């Protein structure tokens, strides 16, 4: 049974409250999970398959994007039987190049849009940017919400904006970046998650990576719980993408533990969970080699792109 969403809920009362200390205690408990041996290898490979390899710098160049795409397709030549990453995430100007480079690889191209990272642009400009990215071949659009409007309590604005972008996306998947570092409280994170999902987000995402703090475990847990409630209510499975700040394999595995024990195994899938990260991939690879050989690894042996 799936409930249809006939009307827009009242976002001032929809979201349950969140107790910060309780969330932090829950996270601490997740972090006591000890992942060893085969289950560790499984997790490392799973995490690698969930990486959105990302470059979002002012100094990005076609060469850098090409290298990144190559890394996405061939994470580590010396290793067999390792997965490809899920997607490459670039600015709109590089979508076409990335799409061409990744052609046939099965790796998606994601592009940030809607005046990333601040979101300060006229609505029309944002929608034009989204359409441009889709036209250029983007499979996934990572939009930002207007935090200024959200913090004013203008929740209807956020709903409309996400819904409009969703429409502009067409068949492309929409990831909604909440920029949780600017929302500050977990209650806000929860509310922004709910609004985004009701407005049509396919994924909700923590951060642009340009604001500190970026993804944190408590924020991610609150978003996973929002996804869970949305699923209970509607039967729709929304994806989750923590982005920024997840640099090592150990932390990535802790995120996977949260996903598994909050949403169950269905979400342990690149279609429903992603890591937005650039340096994480190499640490995952190092750990995979370490698991295979027993020897601790050096970054000098892993290509940096």
């Amino acid at each position, binding site marked *: 049974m799936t409930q249809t969403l006939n009307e827009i809920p009242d976002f001032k009362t929809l979201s349950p409250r969140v107790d910060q200390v309780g*969330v932090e205690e829950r996270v601490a408990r997740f972090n006591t999970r*000890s992942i060893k041996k085969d*289950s560790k290898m499984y997790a490392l490979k799973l995490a690698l398959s969930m990486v959105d390899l990302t470059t979002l710098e002012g100094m990005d160049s076609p060469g850098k994007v090409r290298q990144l795409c190559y890394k996405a397709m061939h994470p580590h030549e010396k290793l067999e039987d390792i997965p490809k990453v899920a997607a490459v995430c670039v600015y709109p100007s590089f979508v076409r190049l990335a799409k061409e480079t990744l052609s046939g690889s099965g790796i998606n191209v994601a592009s940030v849009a809607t005046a990333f990272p601040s979101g300060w642009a006229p609505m029309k400009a944002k929608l034009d940017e989204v359409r441009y990215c889709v036209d250029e071949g983007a499979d996934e659009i990572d939009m930002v919400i207007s935090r200024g409007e959200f913090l004013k309590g203008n929740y209807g604005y956020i709903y409309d904006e996400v819904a409009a972008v969703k429409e502009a996306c067409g068949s492309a998947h929409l990831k909604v970046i909440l920029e949780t570092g600017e929302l500050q409280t977990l209650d806000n994170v929860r509310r922004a998650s709910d609004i985004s999902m009701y407005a049509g987000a396919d994924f909700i995402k923590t951060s642009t990576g340009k604001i500190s703090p970026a993804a944190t475990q408590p924020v991610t847990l609150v978003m996973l719980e929002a996804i869970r409630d949305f699923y209970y209510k509607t039967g729709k499975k929304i994806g989750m993408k923590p982005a920024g700040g997840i640099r090592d394999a150990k932390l990535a595995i802790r995120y*996977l533990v949260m996903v598994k024990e909050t949403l*169950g*195994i*269905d979400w*342990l899938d690149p279609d429903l969970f992603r890591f937005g990260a650039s340096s994480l991939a190499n640490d995952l690879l190092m750990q995979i080699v370490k698991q295979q050989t027993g020897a601790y690894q050096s970054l000098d042996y892993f290509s940096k792109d």
Partner: protein
Amino acid sequence: MLKETELKRPNRLNFTGGWNYDPAPESASNVKLKETYQHFINGKFTEPEEGKYFATLNPATEEKLADVADGSAADVDAAVKAARNGYNKYWSKLSGRDRARYIYRIARMIQERAREFAIIESLDGGKPIRESRDVDVPLSAAYFFYYAGWADKLEYAFPNRNPKPVGVAGQIIPWNFPLMMAAWKIAPALAAGNTVVLKPAETTPLTCLKLAEIIQEADLPPGVVNFVTGAGATGSEIVSHPDIDKVAFTGSTKVGKMIHKSVAGTNKKLTLELGGKAANIVMDDAPLDQAVEGIVNGIFFNQGHVCCAGSRLFVQEGVADTVRDKLIDRMESLIVGDPLDKNTDIGAINSQKQLQTINNYLELGLNEGGEIYQSSCPIPDKGYWVAPTLIGNVSQSHRIVQEEIFGPVLTIQTFRTPAEVIEKANNTPYGLSGGVWTDKGSKIFNLTSQLRAGVVWANTYNKFDPTSPFGGYKESGIGREGGLHGLSAYLKF
């Protein structure tokens, strides 16, 4: 058992298959247990007078860990004499500052050997290593550390009262938190200037005997702390010994009442920390996901072998289905099994006897018409286990709602108004603890002040701290442990 279809949930989460955690056992290789443990009397490990021993088992494997001395009247008498001597000759002559130094030493040495203590606690008692490592042992050290600091400041704790030690304290502790209960008892007693004869529970004596080693290494004067091991008979020898000045007991209300009767008419001071049947109340405006976690901590912490466990869940009707569904999904992700595995959430039931008690209650619950839901986690073949259990369709008159089960068994009832739930929550002879979950500040203070219980957790559950007084109203006990309040039990004025 409650069937899936009866749960009426269309969108279930799937927790089986896929990525499973490999076993991650804590290595017990550097833990050395002796084959036989004697009493610890007058600073020395001492053979039992009658030469009798009993076995202490690992409840997860049913294998014997060690033989432990069975205390007779003569052993208790020797321990009390040693304690009296220790009091007269050494402890009462030390300054508060010097007593503090010894107690600080004990705290530090527990910290140094923390992992070893945690492993032994889990081996002997069945609790998950995650809890013994993260809760029992660090808190035990913290209690010693906290009370050490009081030893030379007692005048400030009780102004105008001229506090003096009571003398020799006889202390009897339960099997659910063996080391921590020893710390709760010994630390304030020593700080206040008393000497101690302590009996650990018969199923979990080992960490106390390890603590005896520390007390030896810390060079405490002989007789200041004595351990006599044994079962109920040994305990009653301590209670009735004429040269005991103070009795402190943690355990069942039934035994607590026997002790209460036995010390009537004597001048022995008495503190009792007894059973409970706490209400955990979830209002419809609560932070629900954290409440579910609090419910889980409330009842499944330490296999539910907790006197203050939130064993009666009350959920306001508007969110009752949601909370139940979330709880069932959460229960599915709990891991039952090897206490030494770092990923274990729920360890072994402490003894076969306790397992039988819990199973009897489950049967009773079924017979009384309860709807029982148990998580589907796999359970080991050997050892004593109970899967996390939820029982619905019950009311105040059900025995499983009234009586302390002391296992991972939660009853769930619904309510509509605050007045209704407070009436139900207080409708028990117990009064140890309670929980309230709501987002509204004024509602929190209203509800917590109406609960007739000594410890109330609002938007949290099962938290303990050396600075925080703990103890019950009504039949849940007499007196407080922890904090400044906990000192007065060991002083006369």
